[in-house]
């Protein structure tokens, strides 16, 4: 049995971070708490428990990168930071493309940094099911997270022209638009949030909670994929996995013995890990209850030069239609390759459109889903299934019509819609008429980055997979701490809710330290 040793080149990686290059043979490690996954859920749990004095070990399948590794090479960043190159699908009609991060820091490394508390009405709904999650009881955890990640409004001079146009359109329509809160310290608008912040401004877990966890003595093992949780009867005792090699192959095995296991692999991979470990829930909800905040985008073309890649994206959110299930409208710039990919055009037509790249505003909306899907574990791998409802496609259609109206009010000259048949709108009247048009489900191009709910928390073990802190019902010493816990979708960006719940769960472990350390 080999023992892992610290990074070969001091200073390249901080002390306490180990990667595949440090593990030269089958390895066994001991700790108090093993945290599987280092994203929005895993990193805060690790930091809180390490600070409290627990011996914490984080195991992360993805690689360890640092701010200096994040460059302008979009496709290289996607290959390194996104699971499956960002091309994972939830099957249904239409299939829904979804994205997850796979790196130390998880999806927070590639997310937009929108940081919002859970809306009060959603928390009230959760409280009605018996959970003690009122906004008042969560307040200290939200505050703590906001401080740690420096959640703050944007500096005006960092906001991109595309976002000012969104605001102009909303103001012209008289619709409610709010400045976004983001986890950043003087974001300077490099517009690379989705590819790793190259300036260090975005306070992702990678640059906030992970350094904090390391500072308080946690160890982080990158490039280690956990295969299963080890059990002694109904008690979790650790995890087993292997080093994941660049070619997708398996390296030496890694066994971690722990007193408490935390599953924080995200809403797609946590249920798969639990199922691979032979666990099930009498609620039947493990892997079920998947919500996605289905998301559609359109491209508006303006006469003026927008150069949307200079300046931060999503600086504002239009919340006017939240009551109708239309979560938010926002402007998001993406590199030309990603926009070209989303357009159904080709050849000279594609060229003519893309020549106007600097005149484009990409705007999107998300829907609070009215249905749920399921993550099934097939041969050990998760596969998501999700069927959009008629109601949700209607909401998307209405949202798209309104968003197009807003963009025309801001001065757009034409709008390309997210349908496979390359449909365009030329003015606000056409935007309004969009509502009357039958659009078959298969035509929609729907994407998402908010997967939630597949190990839902709840007080009733016949209805929920975990208790209200995330401890799995009927299993001892197994905590779930990620987006899987949400009982319902939350209509706003989920990172801060995940972090607040994870912080609260860490507090629960600290309060019961005697029990968990025995």
């Amino acid at each position: 049995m080999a023992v892992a040793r610290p990074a070969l080149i001091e200073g390249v990686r901080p002390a306490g971070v180990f990667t595949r290059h440090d593990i030269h043979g089958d390895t066994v490690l001991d700790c108090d708490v093993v945290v599987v996954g280092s994203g929005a859920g895993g990193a805060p749990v690790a930091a809180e428990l390490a600070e409290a004095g627990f011996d914490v070990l984080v195991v992360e399948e993805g690689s360890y990168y640092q701010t200096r590794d994040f460059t302008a090479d979009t496709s290289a960043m996607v290959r390194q930071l996104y699971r499956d190159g960002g091309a994972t699908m939830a099957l249904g009609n239409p299939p829904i493309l979804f994205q997850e991060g796979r790196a130390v820091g998880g999806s927070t490394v590639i997310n937009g940094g929108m940081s919002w508390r859970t809306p009060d009405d959603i928390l009230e709904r959760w409280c009605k099911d018996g959970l003690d999650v009122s906004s008042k009881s969560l307040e200290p955890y939200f505050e703590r997270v906001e401080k740690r990640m420096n959640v703050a409004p944007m500096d005006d001079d960092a906001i991109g022209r595309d976002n000012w146009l969104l605001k102009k359109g909303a103001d012209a329509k008289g619709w409610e638009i709010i400045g976004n809160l983001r986890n950043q310290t003087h974001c300077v608008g490099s517009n690379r949030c989705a590819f790793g912040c190259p300036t260090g401004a975005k306070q992702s877990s990678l640059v906030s909670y992970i350094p904090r966890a390391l500072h308080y003595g946690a160890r982080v093992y990158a490039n280690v994929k956990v295969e299963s949780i080890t059990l002694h009867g109904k008690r979790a005792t650790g995890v087993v996995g292997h080093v994941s090699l660049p070619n997708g192959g398996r390296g030496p095995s890694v066994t971690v013995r722990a007193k408490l296991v935390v599953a924080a692999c995200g809403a797609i991979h946590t249920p798969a890990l639990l199922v691979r470990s032979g666990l099930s829930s009498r609620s039947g909800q493990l892997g079920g209850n998947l919500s996605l905040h289905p998301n559609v985008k359109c491209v508006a073309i303006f006469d003026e030069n927008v150069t949307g890649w200079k300046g931060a994206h999503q600086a504002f959110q239009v919340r006017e239609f939240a009551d109708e299930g239309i979560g938010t409208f926002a402007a998001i710039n993406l590199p030309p390759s990603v926009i070209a990919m989303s357009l159904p055009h080709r050849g000279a037509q594609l060229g003519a459109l893309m020549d106007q790249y600097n005149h484009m505003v990409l705007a999107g909306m998300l829907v609070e889903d009215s249905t749920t899907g399921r993550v099934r574990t097939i041969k050990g791998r998760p596969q998501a299934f999700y069927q959009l409802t008629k109601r949700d496609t209607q909401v998307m259609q209405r949202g798209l019509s309104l968003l197009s109206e807003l963009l025309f009010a801001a001065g757009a000259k034409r709008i390309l819609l997210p349908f496979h048949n390359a449909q365009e709108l030329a003015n606000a009247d056409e935007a309004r008429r969009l509502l009357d048009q039958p659009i078959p489900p298969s035509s929609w191009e729907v994407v998402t980055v908010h997967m939630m709910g597949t190990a839902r928390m709840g007080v009733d073990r016949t209805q929920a997979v975990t208790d209200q802190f995330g401890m799995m019902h009927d299993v001892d010493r197994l905590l779930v701490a990620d987006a899987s816990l949400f009982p319902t979708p939350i209509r706003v960006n989920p990172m801060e809710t995940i972090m607040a719940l994870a912080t609260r769960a860490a507090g629960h472990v600290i309060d019961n330290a005697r029990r968990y350390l025995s």
Partner: protein
Amino acid sequence: MSDFPDFKLSATGRKVALSLVPVICPPEYVQFADAIVTNFELTISVSPLLLRKGVSAGFATYDLGALPRYRKRAHKLTGEDAERYFSSWEHGITPLHVQFARALNQLLSLGCYDVPEVMEAIGYRPAPWIEEVTRKRLTVYAADVRKQEVQILAPDPLRPGFRIEDVRRDRKVGA
């Protein structure tokens, strides 16, 4: 950084992909066909296994599928014939044909607009912009940046007064 696997199309697969560049990419960028197909391969290298297998199988079917109508394999088709043949897949004999044509369109368009010369041609120059704003952040806002770095590590226990050593000691004593 090379932290992802290599995926290479077969010799024929590459020829098919190269023959599709003039069909899918804007004419002025066909000169970058090699780079576009290399980008395509890089993207496929990290895609889900199913997609990787699908692309390999799809290319073979696409190539041979041209024989009955054109008496040539697809990778030998040029001009109008190449266009017409791709279009027949786009509009689909089966949903699988449509999906495959759509995927090719997406992946080659992605590969095309990832070529540095193409990005330059449409006025997208992120590297100097990143450099400029990074410098600004580290000079104009240096004090705040430092403050946040200190804040990240500052002690702030979730349960003030909690000492794990006490718990461990109690446990030993109590055991």
